[in-house]
């Protein structure tokens, strides 16, 4: 640059900043498919609402663009329609219950989302593993040029952090100390219940016949009340409860125990502390439960699995036995996603290969391929958070579209009914009640069935249209996402 005091002179600029907003020669953005409504000021909107229809018409003629159908201001500007907050993740699994909303099927959702990308003129790579800016996710579709795509997230690929467990829930994969703590809290809670009302506690917890049950009942009703010292009484309660809990399990009465049952029994023999026993038994049982189904996992895996359990059972050194057991629990818990545990699934196949390796101490090394495969199938919560951050920074745009997003709910509009049909049904019911013969009733019932069929058909049409509307709304939002993503990149 010339000296600050040098006389100014005209000097052509060789290279200028190239702006990205549309020029006169580009398409007018007001003619884009999603036209942007005029952002009327609050004063204008108030005036519109008081001047009424005429005012609105006038404005329509002048503006040459869409007039808002109501007077509430529209958000207008582009933003990310799929923030992580919209995904409703992590979710809390519900074991039972009615009244859950009906949602669109994943297949349908994916079809419509893919359609959105096509309508935006993008060539996509489908079902591809993408590794970009530090994340590896199984993308349903991805365009490299715009670094733009999406991941459909549902139960099939929920990874770490996607499910939120209640603090009292014991999920597979929990560590020994955490499970011990759980049982400790449970015993403390039961102790309090017993203290408040011993008889009620007995009737609540003692409900089947066995030697262990009788011993526990005897302890609760006779032995404990005789102990004056409260601390000693509590310790006695804990011993009685843990003994009852462990030995009342059916495995101890199994006449032909499987290797899995034999290992469970070994736990009670080889681990001293009762709470540790309870915890380890639970963890082992929880980790193997899904694999202990030969019809599901197939013969080859069942054989490899049984072989591993036998090896554990036959390990004499307690320390080595414990280590190998923990290793197996850890491995099986990491692959505990139900849909992987199926004969023929590549992940289950790989797990079988890992189990078949002779030296179990080197399993972690052998299992690296297995973990990589799992990672490629799953999406973790931390990954979708990272996707959001990358999109905000304009580095890549992978929309995390969740099956639990509220937009997947099909709103059936409270179940509209057709008054004429309802009246016909009522009338026919009245006639049936008043009918004097079976023949008359049969004939009326036939008519009623016809009306019911008509109603079902109309309900289906309504339901289908609601279903379609939900899918189309989702598609539209995906298109907005694409436009937003392109805008962030200056296109």
């Amino acid at each position: 640059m010339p000296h600050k005091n040098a006389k100014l002179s005209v000097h052509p600029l060789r290279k200028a900043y190239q702006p990205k907003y549309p020029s006169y020669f580009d398409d007018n953005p007001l003619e884009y498919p999603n036209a942007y409504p005029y952002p009327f000021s609050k004063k204008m909107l108030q005036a519109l609402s008081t001047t009424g229809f005429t005012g609105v018409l006038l404005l329509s003629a002048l503006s040459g663009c869409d007039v808002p159908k109501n007077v509430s201001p529209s958000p207008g500007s582009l933003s990310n329609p799929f923030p992580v907050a919209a995904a409703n993740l992590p979710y809390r699994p519900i074991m039972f219950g009615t009244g859950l909303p009906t949602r669109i099927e994943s297949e349908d959702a994916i079809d419509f989302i893919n359609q959105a990308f096509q309508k935006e003129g993008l060539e996509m790579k489908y079902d591809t593993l993408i590794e970009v800016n530090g994340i590896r996710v199984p993308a349903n579709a991805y365009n490299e040029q715009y670094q733009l795509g999406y991941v459909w997230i549902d139960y099939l690929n929920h990874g770490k952090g996607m499910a939120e467990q209640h603090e009292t829930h014991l999920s597979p994969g929990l560590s020994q100390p955490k499970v011990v703590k759980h049982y400790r809290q449970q015993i403390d809670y039961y102790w309090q219940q017993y203290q408040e009302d011993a008889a009620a506690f007995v009737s609540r917890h003692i409900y089947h016949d066995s030697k262990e049950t009788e011993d526990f009942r005897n302890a609760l009703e006779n032995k404990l009340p005789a102990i004056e010292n409260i601390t000693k009484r509590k310790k006695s309660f804990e011993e009685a409860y843990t003994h009852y809990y462990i030995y009342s399990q059916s495995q101890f009465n199994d006449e032909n125990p499987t290797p899995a049952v034999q290992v469970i029994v070994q736990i009670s023999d080889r681990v001293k502390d009762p709470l540790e026993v309870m915890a380890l038994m639970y963890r082992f049982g929880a980790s193997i439960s899904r694999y202990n189904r030969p019809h599901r996992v197939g013969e080859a895996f069942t054989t490899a699995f049984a072989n591993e359990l036998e090896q554990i059972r036959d390990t004499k050194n307690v320390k080595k036995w414990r280590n190998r057991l923990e290793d197996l629990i850890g491995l099986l818990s990491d692959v505990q996603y139900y849909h992987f545990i199926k004969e023929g699934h590549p992940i289950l196949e790989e797990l079988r290969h890992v189990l078949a390796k002779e030296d179990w101490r080197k399993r972690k090394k052998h299992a690296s391929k297995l973990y990589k495969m799992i990672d490629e199938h799953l999406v973790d919560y931390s990954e979708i958070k990272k996707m959001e951050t990358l999109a905000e920074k304009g580095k890549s745009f992978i929309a995390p579209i969740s099956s639990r997003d509220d937009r997947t709910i099909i709103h059936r509009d409270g179940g509209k009914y057709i008054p004429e049909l309802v009246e016909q049904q009522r009338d026919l019911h009245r006639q049936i009640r008043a009918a004097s013969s079976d023949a008359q009733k049969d004939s009326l019932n036939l008519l009623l069935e016809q009306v019911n069929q008509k109603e079902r058909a109309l309900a289906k049409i309504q339901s289908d249209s609601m279903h379609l509307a939900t899918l189309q709304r989702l598609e539209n939002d995906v298109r907005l996402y694409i436009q937003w993503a392109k805008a962030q990149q200056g296109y």
Partner: protein
Amino acid sequence: MSREIVDASITFLLEEAEKRKCERLDITFFGGEPLLEKDHIFYITDTLEEKAAHLRINYKMSTNGTLITKPLMAQLMARRIFTSLSLDGPPSIHDKHRPQAGGQRSSRKAIEAAKIMLRYNPCTSVSCVISPDTAMHLADSADYLFNLGFRYLITTLDYSSDWTIKDFKTLKKSYQQLADWYENKMLSNERFYLSFFDERIRTRTFKPITAHERCHIGSRQFSIAPDGALYPCIQFVTTEGLPEYMIGHVSHGFDEACQAYITHCSEKEKSECNGCALEDRCSKWCSCINFMSTGSIEKASPIVCYNEQVLMEIVDRTADRLWKKRLPLFIHKHYNPDYPIIAHMELNL
């Protein structure tokens, strides 16, 4: 200007309009302070209303505000004389370059005038001139004027000042502050016009203007001096008189050879600008500014050159940020031909 010259000017205008088959006239009263001759102004407008009812005439004027009163404003409004105010910013800025004849500060009267003018016409524009010594306060001045109620801010540099490169460094920082201000106002859905920014965005979003379509200095646009002499533009009307730029007189009409020469000079390619990446967007075509800056209408103004290079990138980056967000106000402001009308209606509510 004498009454005789006024009458001769009116006659000349009507004859020219007839000759060229015009349907519309744009008449701007300028000075000094045009309101010092308000009687002439009203005489002109009343006479033209009587004699030129068939023409659509737009009247404009810029005032320093010292003579504005409510009754006067009412008269101006009744005659539809669109009046803008010259106000450079808060008093500390304005008074630096606009003292009254006796040296007193003029800001107080200007601010009072602003309030009156905005009450009568919320769409009143304000002209804010930036000098080297006030450049660092540009954003503050714009904010001050906005808070005063102005929504049409016409900002321009003082092209007659001695700008240095150091001044442009200061100005660049001010432009960046102004960009932030512009962006915040747009994001707040405010209706306003800031010429520094909106004109430059327009150079990209509107159809490129050919030299012929611009002011067409001396031909489609000309100025009548107090003595009746015709000049290409207002900047050529000085107290000394510039005979070399005279293109006629109201008494005998245009000197066509001189007129053609002036037009030719102003539309000539500026070779010093060849190959410039901003050539299509730069305001180097304004002969007025070139004349003020260089003393010649054939030479491109270095002040314009530096200013465009500094400002254009800042404006474009700001526009890009708003475009990225697809801000509806940005889109409608620059791509909806009806926006000026709608915005005008909104401001008048």
